[in-house]
Structure formats: structure tokens, C-alpha cells
């Protein structure tokens, strides 16, 4: 083999050496279930006796998307509406708030390591513990929050059983729980911004917002893309908080799509994995569209 052929062969092999370990594991443990799910969505799938499955083509999709008489249509659209509500309500605070906190800590005030730990701590709890804590705190008649408000002369607020409080509660507990994660990513990425730029900004008398817009944002743009997309995905997939916290209520107004999907796929009395995976795929398409839009916007912002 000629030297230049060997070199080009090597240069073509090198990327493979780096991404193959992941790709192999990914193919086995992810791609297989992933395509399994897609495959199922074309069937009336019997969870207990896969041999008894019936091919129905796109019928599952048709039913959930278009067949207004079907109960699955109601489930899908109610679920999607609720999920979108949650996404719109939760993603902005989950991105902006940690950025502010991380920026504040970036100047390294006294005790900043302790502050960081405090904000991260809730992230350590499991979903079950999280909901347990907040159900207790937000309990209408015996919860800490209402007891405190009571001291201030405010009547009991039904945090978990009436709107709009139910949404507020869900967003509140989610922010408390997951903000730590985004915060440390911002922390790490803010370290990449050169100090001297801030100093120059201060000398020029730039305001906080100007510094944020022109100095910080360009440097953290890549991580901002990551955080926005991942937070959006996470909010779309929300399950534990409405399931255990508000039980999908009141009146199914917080029953998010993932709750319907999980229930229909598996746990509910009558599993219909075909319909469930069709819903999941539909939801995935929505997420992809939104994710692409977000990435484009952020990229343009940085220019």
C-alpha cells in the first residue's frame, strides 16, 4: 500500500475508533428497543402474546391524530395540550433562573461553594421523594405552605387540586428539583469566558444586560443550545410530578401525554402498546420540530 493510501485509510479509520464504542453499545441497547417500538406502532400488539398481534398499518396513528370519536384521540390531544402547557411554563424558568444564579456565583462571593451545594442538593432526590416532600408542603389543610400563609391571614390555597395552582405547583417543584443540573452546566461554561473581557466591559461602563448579551452569550452559546434542548426534552417527558403530585387532576387538566402513554403501554388494565408507541412517536416528532427551531434561533442569536 502506498504511504498516502495508508495515511488516508488511517484518517478514515480514526473517527471510527472514537465513535464506534458508543455506537455499538447504542445499537444494541437503544436502537433495538427503538425500532422495536416503531415496529409495534404498526400493530394491534398483544403485550402478553405477541404472536397474536395484528397488523394495522397506520391505523393507530390515524386514530390518535384524526379520529375524533375515538377515546385515544381524546387521550392524545388532551395529553399533548397539557404537556405543551407544562413545557411553555417550565422551560423558560428552568433556563433563565439557573443562568442568573450561576452568573451571580461566578463572581465568587463569600461562601459560593456552599450556595452551589444548596442549589444542587434537590437534584439528588428521587422523584418519589420529591413528590412526597412537596405533597406534604403543599397539602391544602395541613401543609407547611398554607400554614405559613395562614399566619399571614391568607386562606388555604388548594395547591394541588385546583387550577391555576396545580400548574404553579408542578412548575415550582420541577424548578426546585432540577435547577441544579442546569446551574452547574452554566457554571462550567461560564468558566470559559475570559475574565479580561468582563474587566474591559466594566471599564467601558457596560450594564449587566449589555455584558450578558455581548460577552457572555456568545461564549456560552453552545451550552445554551444543549441546555435548552435537553430541558425541553425533559419537560416534554414529564411524568412523575403530575402522576404522583396532582394525579393528573383536577379533571385531567394536568394529565400529561406521558401519563397516557405509560398507562396505555403497560400498566393500565388493558395494555395497547401499539397505540402507546404511536403516541410516543407523534410526541417525538413534535419535540424534534421544536428542538430544531430552538437550535436555529439560538445559533442566530449568537451571530
Amino acid at each position, binding site marked *: 500500500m502506498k504511504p498516502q493510501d495508508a495515511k488516508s485509510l488511517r484518517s478514515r479509520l480514526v473517527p471510527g475508533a472514537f465513535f464506534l464504542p458508543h455506537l455499538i453499545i447504542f445499537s444494541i441497547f437503544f436502537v433495538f428497543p427503538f425500532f422495536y417500538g416503531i415496529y409495534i406502532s404498526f400493530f394491534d400488539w398483544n403485550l402478553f*402474546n405477541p404472536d397474536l398481534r395484528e397488523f394495522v398499518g397506520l391505523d393507530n396513528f390515524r386514530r390518535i391524530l384524526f379520529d375524533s370519536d375515538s377515546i385515544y384521540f381524546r387521550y392524545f390531544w388532551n395529553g399533548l395540550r397539557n404537556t405543551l402547557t407544562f413545557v411553555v411554563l417550565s422551560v423558560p424558568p428552568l433556563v433563565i433562573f439557573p443562568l442568573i444564579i450561576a452568573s451571580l456565583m461566578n463572581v465568587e462571593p463569600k461562601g459560593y461553594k456552599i450556595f452551589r451545594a444548596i442549589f444542587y442538593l434537590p437534584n439528588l432526590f428521587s422523584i418519589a421523594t420529591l413528590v412526597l416532600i412537596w405533597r406534604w408542603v403543599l397539602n391544602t389543610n395541613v401543609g407547611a405552605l398554607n400554614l405559613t400563609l395562614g399566619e399571614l391571614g391568607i386562606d388555604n390555597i388548594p395547591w394541588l387540586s385546583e387550577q391555576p395552582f396545580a400548574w404553579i405547583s408542578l412548575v415550582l417543584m420541577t424548578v426546585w428539583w432540577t435547577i441544579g443540573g442546569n446551574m452547574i452546566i452554566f457554571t462550567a461554561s461560564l468558566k470559559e469566558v475570559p475574565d479580561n473581557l468582563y474587566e474591559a466591559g466594566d471599564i467601558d461602563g457596560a450594564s449587566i444586560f449589555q455584558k450578558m448579551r455581548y460577552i457572555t452569550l456568545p461564549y456560552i452559546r453552545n451550552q445554551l443550545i444543549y441546555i435548552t434542548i435537553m430541558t425541553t426534552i425533559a419537560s416534554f417527558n414529564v411524568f412523575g410530578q403530575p402522576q404522583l403530585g396532582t394525579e393528573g387532576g*383536577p379533571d385531567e387538566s394536568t394529565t400529561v401525554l406521558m401519563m397516557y402513554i405509560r398507562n396505555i403501554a403497560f400498566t393500565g388494565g388493558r395494555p395497547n402498546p401499539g397505540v402507546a408507541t404511536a403516541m410516543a412517536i407523534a410526541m417525538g416528532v413534535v419535540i424534534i420540530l421544536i428542538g430544531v427551531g430552538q437550535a436555529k434561533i439560538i445559533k442566530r442569536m449568537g451571530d
Partner: protein
Amino acid sequence: MTLSILFISIFTLAACGGNGDNDLQEGEVALTFWNIFTGPDGQVMRGMVDDFNDEYDGEIRVSTQTIPETDFYDVFNTSVPQGEGPDIAIMHMRRIAQYAELGMLNAFEDMIDADEMGENYLDAAWDGGSFEGIQYGIPLDVHPIGLYYNKDILDEAGIDVPTTYDELVAACEELEGVVDHCMPVSNTWPSQNLFISSLFQHGGSDLDENHYPAFNTQEGYDALKVFHDMVYEDNISIPNVTVDEDLTLFRQGNAAFHINGIWMLNGIKESGVNFGTSSIDTLFGDEQPAVWADSHNFVMPYQPGMSEEKEEAIMTFIEYITANAMEWVEGGQFPADLSLLESEAFENLEYHSTFADVDAITFTTTSPYLEDGFEPIFLRVTQAMRNEDADIQELLDDAESEGIELVDEATGR
């Protein structure tokens, strides 16, 4: 850095000593047993299993796996169809028909004489484990709901325990000023079970012979209206009580009455409240005494080809446990085994004997489509309790049409 090394070494050292299973001896039959009894209940059950293993040492060895109730059916649905299920499991009786119909349970058919064995158990509990004439479940216990009442509060107000709805309304009037809450009722769990009791007490029924919803009747209407009235007409409960809030209020001594299952007995004992129990069999309606209950049954999950020795071992185990279930009962259950139910020891249990009228215990219809056809009404029970302007008939109609649709969906396969 040193701190973390310290931590790691402490944990590593302390971690010595997991729970190892002993090895099997020659000729011992190994049985795997899955149950849903976590926490303190689990300790009692484990004690019984250990006693069994001691007594049958060398012949049968049962190893237990416990799975929390909320996740049990997830694990079951994953493992059993792929052949990785256990030899014996505990299942709620109301689910047996569905799993039997799906082919996920092996029948006890050839292993027992169903009629003869059935004589030993409470009729309703035995029948509930039978589907299309074949026995799939053997009942371990029966757990009804009942009324817990605060003795001190009732004494202070000078009233007796109510047994009918009118008495309950009157009691709440008397109790105004004596206690903050009369009988708060959570509008989600366990209101479903209270509703079922109400439905049967009014002479209504859950499903018809075609597995379709049968609750959209005058009786069903009356049964559902009670729940609306409890909150908005008769001041029995304040609105918007969330799950466990009613329990907490009772445990704090701020509520006079609380309806919950017998399984809550220990939880309420531990609260320190001076309480008594009473049957709710005529509390909502007067057509027919009825108390909702479910039952934990032994079932045999689907497994291809089981040996005869195993089958015998399973029967030995089941009979042993159900006959020795007294400790289990004390933990907060009713026995299904008649010899225990009618025994003096049971009669002498302070709270059990008054908790529920055994003859009134009524189970939901045995049908593989119970959840499809009947469950939609539960959401509407919640809505009736939440909305002052709830239209009861509309709620019933909605539930019925959703139930019909789900049953069609299920049977149409």
C-alpha cells in the same frame, strides 16, 4: 479527598453482609414466591414463610421476592410473558379474571377439588378467584373498608356511632364546634371503594352480563349523588380533600370519622387516637347491606410445564399460610379461611370484630373487563365531589360511554 476515601471505606466495611439465600438441599423443591407486601406487612409475611421453611426443611424451600404494590403489575407484565415469572404470586382478586383471560395464569384445576376446598373459605372470596368455572385463585385474606371513629370526640358530643346516612348527617350537626372536621373524604383514593359500597347499598351494579357498564341507573344516580351531597349539601366533608389528608386529619384528632381499609389499622393505632371501628354496610344506602372489599389471592403465573412435585409443594405452601394467617390478620386483614374467620381468636380481636359485617362483604363483579367498563366512573366520583354544580346525570352518561368504548376496544380483539 480524604473525607471521601473515609466515606467509601466506611460504607464498604459496613456493607459486608447482604442477604444470601441458603443453598438447596438434596431433593428439596424450590419455589419462588412474589408478593406485594413491603414494610411491616412484609415482615409478618416473611416470618410466616420462614416458619414454613423451617417446618418443611429438606422438603420445600420457598424464596420470596417483594415488589411494591404500585409497580407489581409492571414487573409482572414484563417478566411473566417471557417465562421469567415466579411459581406463586399474590394478586388482587379483582384482577384475576383479566389475567386468566389473557392466559397469564395457570389454573389450580387439576391440583384441587375446587368445590371441596371452597368450603373452607368465605364464599364470595372463593368465587371471586374463579373464572369461567375454573379456579385460578386461592384467597389469603379479605380486606374491607370500614369506619374509624374518634371515641373521645363522640363521647364529648354525646352521640352514638352512625350506621345510616341520616344518622351520619345528624352526627355531623351535633359535632359542629366540637371538632374541626366531621368526616373529611378524599376525593380521589379511596373514594372509589366508598362509591362501590354506596352503589351496591343502593341496589345498583357495576357491570352487566355483557361486561358493559351497568351503573347508569336510578340506583347509580342516587349512589353518586350521595358523594356530591356529602360535600355540598350535608356538610359531612369539606371540599377538596386530597388523598391522605383525610387520614392525617383523623390521626391528628381533628376529624371525628374516617373511612378507610382494615389495612390502615396499625397506622391509626400508632397515631395515639382513642378510636373504635364500625361497619359501613348501611351507611350510604338502605337497599342492601354492602361493604366493599378486595382480597389477596395466591395465583400461579403462567409457566410452561410445571412438575407434579412443584404443584404439590405449592398446594402445601398455600394451605399452610392460609391456615396460619392469624398474625397476618392481626396486621390489618380479615382472614378468608373460615376456620380463622369464625374462630374465637378472631372474635376477640378488638377492632376487627366491629370493623365490617362479614355477611355484607361484597366484591365487584368477576369480569376480565372490570377495569375497562367500570373504572371510568371513578373520575366522575371525584368530579362530583369537586364541583358544586356537578350534573350527576351527565357524569354518569360520560362514564358509561367511556366504559362502553373501552370494553368494545378490549373485546374487539
